[in-house]
């Protein structure tokens, strides 16, 4: 019975190919748009996720405050109110799993005939774990290197490419940073772009003490501009922030009601905001695309209504030879369903092809997920049944005598 009806639906569609194709086209465009838009949205979300995870997880950055010199205020990090002892104290907190004091600046770097300007980070080995940096080649300098201010350096991939090219292995070579010679002990694995679009691989990491004494100078011994801290788990972020605020206020002798001479920023929260914005964008894209799916569904209803009218006599014949109302209902419903499913399958192919095209031509990351395909499929099938139901019911409720008399 069902097989016979499926065959009939196929026949009926074939009887008016142009019309069937145009009806399907609405469905194809709708499904294709949904799949493509979801692929673009998903691509953007995955790109954001990747840069968030490259940043390191559950991260805080503690900046020293802004000095106020005769009314002119400098930016955060310039007051030198934080020092290495603060970092040690923070690392004692239960809600913190890793701490790294950081001194930063930019410097000109020279190897043989090449030179390059890059950012130099002075820090301690735990920075590597906090920021999720790994070593491609070589090793990370040790805490004893930090204590003795050794002139060793880890270089990022961009720096390695610009100074050494492809042929030379940088490890074991000596470069000059601000005229001082540094031995390269390791090359960092690539991280790619950060959330704000900076190249994270364009960097050099050296021991904190070496940076302070040999590169950037140190007005107040032991002071740092910022401390990076990591909480062990997502649900400890708030606790960690409160603990650090209390600890530092206490250590800096700040009275009740006075402003902090430092600031604690939750980098992960900032990143999550960016991810949330991307998610909203993806949702919006999908919603706009699904409007075209709705329009496609209305197209199916329209054509099915025409078809029911055209085939009134046929319906009358079927009723006269024993078709029940539900047989007629099923027949027309199945026809609408087949149109929308075939349209949907072609639409998915269009969407997947479109996503590949966007990726190649526009360079935007697109990701087609199995969820987006199954969602498009389910929605298209429901649209077919929903918009096919009214015409099918109209057919099933026809009066057989009037239907037989129809010309």
């Amino acid at each position, binding site marked *: *019975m069902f*097989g*016979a*009806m499926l065959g009939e639906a196929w*026949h*009926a569609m074939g*009887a008016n190919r142009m019309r069937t194709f145009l009806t399907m086209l609405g469905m194809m465009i709708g499904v294709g748009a949904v799949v493509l838009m979801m692929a673009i949205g998903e691509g953007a979300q995955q790109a954001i996720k990747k840069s968030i995870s490259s940043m390191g997880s559950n991260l805080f950055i503690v900046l020293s405050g802004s000095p106020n010199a005769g009314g002119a205020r400098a930016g955060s990090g310039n007051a030198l109110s934080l020092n290495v002892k603060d970092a040690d104290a923070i690392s004692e907190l239960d809600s913190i799993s890793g701490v790294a004091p950081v001194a930063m600046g930019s410097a000109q770097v020279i190897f043989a005939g090449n030179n390059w300007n890059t950012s130099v980070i002075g820090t301690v080995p735990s920075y590597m774990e906090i920021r999720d940096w790994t070593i491609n080649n070589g090793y990370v300098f040790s805490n004893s290197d930090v204590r003795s201010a050794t002139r060793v350096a880890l270089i990022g991939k961009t720096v390695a490419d610009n100074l050494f090219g492809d042929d030379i292995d940088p490890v074991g070579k000596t470069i000059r940073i601000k005229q001082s010679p540094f031995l390269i002990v390791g090359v960092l694995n690539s991280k790619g772009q950060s959330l704000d679009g900076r190249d994270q691989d364009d960097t050099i990491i050296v021991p904190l003490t070496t940076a302070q004494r040999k590169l950037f100078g140190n007005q107040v011994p032991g002071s740092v501009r910022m401390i990076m801290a990591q909480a062990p788990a997502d649900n400890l972020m708030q606790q960690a922030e409160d603990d650090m605020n209390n600890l530092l206020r206490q250590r800096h002798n700040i009275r009740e009601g006075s402003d902090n001479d430092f600031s604690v920023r939750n980098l992960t929260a900032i990143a999550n905001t960016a991810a949330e914005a991307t998610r909203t964008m993806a949702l919006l894209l999908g919603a706009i695309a699904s409007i075209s799916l709705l329009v496609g569904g209305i197209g199916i209803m329209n054509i099915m209504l025409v078809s029911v009218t055209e085939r009134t*006599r*046929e319906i*009358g*014949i*079927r*009723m*006269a*030879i*024993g*078709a*029940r*109302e539900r*047989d007629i209902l099923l027949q027309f419903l199945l026809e609408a369903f087949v149109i929308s499913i075939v349209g949907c399958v072609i639409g998915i192919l269009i969407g997947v092809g479109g996503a590949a095209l966007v990726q190649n031509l526009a360079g935007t990351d697109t990701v087609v997920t199995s969820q987006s395909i199954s969602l498009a499929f389910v929605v298209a099938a429901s649209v077919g049944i929903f918009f096919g139901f009214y015409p099918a019911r109209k057919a099933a409720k026809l009066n*057989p*005598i009037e239907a*037989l008399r129809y010309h």
Partner: protein
Amino acid sequence: MKPMIEVRHLYKDYQTAAGAFPVLKDVNLSIAHGEYVAIMGPSGSGKSTFMNILGCLDKPTSGEYYLDSYAVAELENNALAKLRNKTIGFVFQGFNLLARSSLLDNVALPLVYSGIDKHIRHEKAAQVLNKVGLGNYLNSRPSQISGGQQQRVAIARALVNSPRLILADEPTGNLDSKTSEEIMALFDALNQEGISIVLVTHENDIAEHAKRQIRFRDGVIEHDSLHAVLASERS
């Protein structure tokens, strides 16, 4: 034994803007199993309405109708569809075949609605098409054969579910006289096999094939040849 068709005090009104218009007024009729009946009468006499009611396509306004002992007036739509499917075979003036389907599929269609398997459907359909002399045209379309052949296909379709009654509404109305005779010969043969036949016609020579003639006028039975015979025998 119960009659094939038993109609008592049958009324049918049509609702018009001017109020209820009576089409059938107190029709009483009994047709036995295996009878061959022609219903005649001018346009507007109510014979088509009567045929629609006999065919379970329309319901009477009041009165009783028993088809093969089913009280048709009390049945709901699905049960009526089942009667049309299994007990009755329809033959129409305009053949009413599905143009897109092959002759085999046309004839097999009633079996689809009986829920019968595909290979049995095709087997039975081919069998009845053979019987009406169209065994070589199983995969042709209705448009590829003549009118007389199309009516044979329609008769095959009416026969495929082995009905006890065939209702034919002007079955030769669209055919020339030679073809008409061939179709009527087919009906005669079917009646010989024991199938009850009721046909509507306004041609006397067609009605002559039947063993009983009933004439409608203005919604009532004006003449019934069976009663006339009985009356002449009584006098």
